[in-house]
């Protein structure tokens, strides 16, 4: 009877563990929802014309050092821009309030992150303040298009010169 009981407990534990794992795989892995552990800090917002594929949880860095993460990305229907709220760790509390934010890419294929460039102001960013100077994500396709358009027109120019 004792062994029967421990067998049932073992089976129950195994099945429970298995279903918990299945639940995690189906609900937490796709899409958002996994919390990374809240860190103390203050949030500031910045408006961008285009955030590219910036994601919630992406790093916010200054001079290459991570100082926080992207907390939320919303869309502002009044001026058709993206509002990104950045959670900056409280130890980095001396960032000038005229600093600029730009969306940059890690490596060639890496994800996007928000880079902060320091300004020269004597007052600092605090909870709820907005970063005024922003630069959007560089969309690689438009850059390549621009480059090839330039190239093609130059090429056409030399061709006609030769023909003459």
């Amino acid at each position: 009877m004792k062994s029967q009981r421990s067998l049932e407990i073992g089976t129950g534990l195994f099945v429970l563990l298995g279903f918990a794992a299945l639940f995690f795989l189906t609900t937490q892995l796709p899409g958002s929802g996994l919390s990374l552990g809240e860190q103390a800090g203050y949030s500031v917002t910045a408006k961008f014309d285009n955030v590219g594929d910036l994601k919630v949880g992406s790093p916010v860095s200054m001079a290459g050092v991570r100082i926080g993460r992207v907390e939320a990305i919303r869309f502002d229907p009044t001026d058709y821009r993206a509002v990104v709220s950045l959670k900056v760790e409280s130890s980095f509390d001396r960032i000038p309030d005229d600093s600029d934010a730009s969306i940059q890419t890690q490596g060639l294929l890496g994800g996007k992150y928000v880079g902060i460039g320091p300004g020269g102001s004597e007052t600092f960013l605090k909870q709820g303040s907005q970063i005024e100077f922003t630069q959007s994500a560089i969309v690689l396709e438009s850059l390549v298009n621009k480059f090839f358009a330039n190239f093609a027109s130059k090429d056409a120019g030399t061709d006609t010169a030769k023909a003459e």
Partner: protein
Amino acid sequence: MIGASLGRIGAVVLFLLRVLGQCLPALAKPRAVIHQIYNAGARSLIIIMLCGLFVGMVLGLQGFDLLQRFGSEDALGVAAALGFLKELGPVVTALLFAGRAGTALTSEIGLMRATDQLTAMEMMAVDPLRHVIAPRFLGGVIAMPLLVAIFDIVGLFGAQLIGVQLMAVDPGAFWSQMQAAVELDDVYEGIVKSICFGFACSLIAVYEGYHAPPTAQGVGLATTRTVVVSSVLVLLIDYMLTAAFLGR
């Protein structure tokens, strides 16, 4: 040679149909099935978790080394999650399952055959297919997807351990890119694969045990054949399922 192979395939399919016919009556007595879930699942848990951890850690190292060359080590989370969900989880778990639970099933049933226990049941008009084979088959089929899910989780933890803790991949990028890239279809692919593998491994194990020659050598050979046939079958089914899923 060809005739013998065809005959074996036919025998396995006929055996499968007979077992499937006995599955519902066997489910009416869940205690035996629970016992077999314990044997096949709970007792494989340690080896599954241990192997998952190390496979994940290796994937973390190798993936980091490879992705670093392209400057995109942040994609490690994506690589690990998709690798585990779609391929490594189901296949490695099925191979381990064949070695750990499949062999135990085969030798147990083979010994029952060799010591005339199955014949005795038949003499008493107790159908061994219903009372011995079907619960073991069902236990394996039910245990496999759960084992695969646990293997995936532990593996991801291992990859995270190496990637984030040791190699300093940014945890935010690791998880956020993973969540952005993994879709529910990827998870379903893994679940479908694990169910199919559980089906195949359990079937081969009980078939080989049930038809083992009633000698010490026969049971030994049947156990070996379980591992070989299950492994080949798992890899074969894996290719077909992968092609089917990619072709959609």
